[in-house]
């Protein structure tokens, strides 16, 4: 999914993007570090409510654009979620629309079938240099795991 979101940065003026589930939870993001995950705890559900508000009395939305003085937030509905992109006001809209359609289709496949994401070749995970070692097993676990001829050994 990261590679799909990163592809959107090929469009000039795209600052970053993020994906919300159908309940508004952040699924993934490709944004500068200043956008902490906590930001999306409230923002995600608000975007979902905004879509629902505009859909009220009408049809389900395909796309939504929030125009601000210097930026735009493009929201594209995909199967099982929302693809959101932050751009400046001068972005090539037809190019972005095309890219959004392609990425949304790919995300739709991933969201509807999570195994597809695992099947797609991706970069290996970085080595966990400072990772915490796994917790030692408790005494009770040891009790359950130690057996002799089928009988637990205390």
């Amino acid at each position, binding site marked *: 999914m990261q590679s799909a979101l990163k592809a959107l940065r090929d469009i000039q003026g795209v600052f970053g993007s993020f994906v919300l589930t159908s309940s508004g939870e952040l699924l993934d993001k490709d944004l500068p570090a200043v956008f902490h995950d906590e930001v999306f705890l409230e923002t995600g559900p*608000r975007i979902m409510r905004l879509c629902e508000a505009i859909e009220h009395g*009408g049809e389900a939305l395909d796309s939504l654009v929030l125009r601000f003085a210097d930026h735009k937030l493009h929201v594209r509905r995909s199967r099982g979620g929302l693809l959101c992109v*932050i751009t400046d006001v001068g972005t090539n809209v037809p190019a972005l629309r095309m890219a959004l359609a392609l990425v949304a289709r790919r995300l739709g496949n991933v969201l509807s079938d999570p195994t597809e994401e695992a099947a797609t070749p991706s970069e290996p995970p970085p080595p966990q240099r400072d990772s915490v070692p796994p917790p030692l097993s408790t005494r009770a676990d040891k009790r359950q795991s130690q057996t002799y001829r089928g009988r637990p050994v205390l």
Partner: protein
Amino acid sequence: MNAHREVASSPENSVGFAANLKHASLTDLVQMHCLGGAQCVARITSGEHVGYLYFRGGNIVHAMSASHVGESAALEILGWNTGVFELCNAGWPDSESIQAASPTLLLRAAHARDESNRKHRNLVRLAVPRSEPPPARAEASAVSELTSPFNEERAAMPDRHDGGLESRVTLPPTLGPQSGVTRVQAAARVDAHGNVISSRGLGSEELAGVSALSVRLAQLVGESLGLDRLLAVEGASPSQRTLIVLEKSGSILGMRAPSDADLASVRERYGV
């Protein structure tokens, strides 16, 4: 507009009736004199302004005001809204300055008045500070302009008004033949305090609430993402588009149109 026929100095020589009318429009009075076909001169006084219209053969053939002569004077005089219309004994000019027929002249005057009112509305809109509510008449008229397919015809029709705030007309789902703006299905304007200023079209009352809520949510989304000053929200579905504009006055204008409607002129008008 008050109107009365000046009684001649020798009443026994005059024929016909003297009349004293109130609340008549200048257009009506001019048309009445054109129908008579008589040769006469009318003095029109509006505040400090004085002008003269010369009638002959059912047309206005000459006009004078303090600053203009001819058709421009006639248009100026016909643009006055209040005053007194009275026949007088002013001298006839050596040459008549207006060739256009009276109906044409009246239509031009109506069009000029409408343009003047439109410019005035725009000036009022620009002059309204952010904290004050916008003028209701102008705002209602703007919504009317968006939903009415008959703007051009209305501009040419004298003394027609869209009825202001009290006139809430339910329009058919799709209006007008081709123009994108005229195909707006519903429009609603809400002021900064959430009061519905005007609404037109099917589902426009609901659209007012949708617009107000959407703007609030979009502002919150923008604040949390560091995106300043919301201008508009635009949603697209397979057969419908919803455009919500946050105006400088703080009012919110929401409109719904078919998906193939061209809202470019609306975006341009509101700078979004």
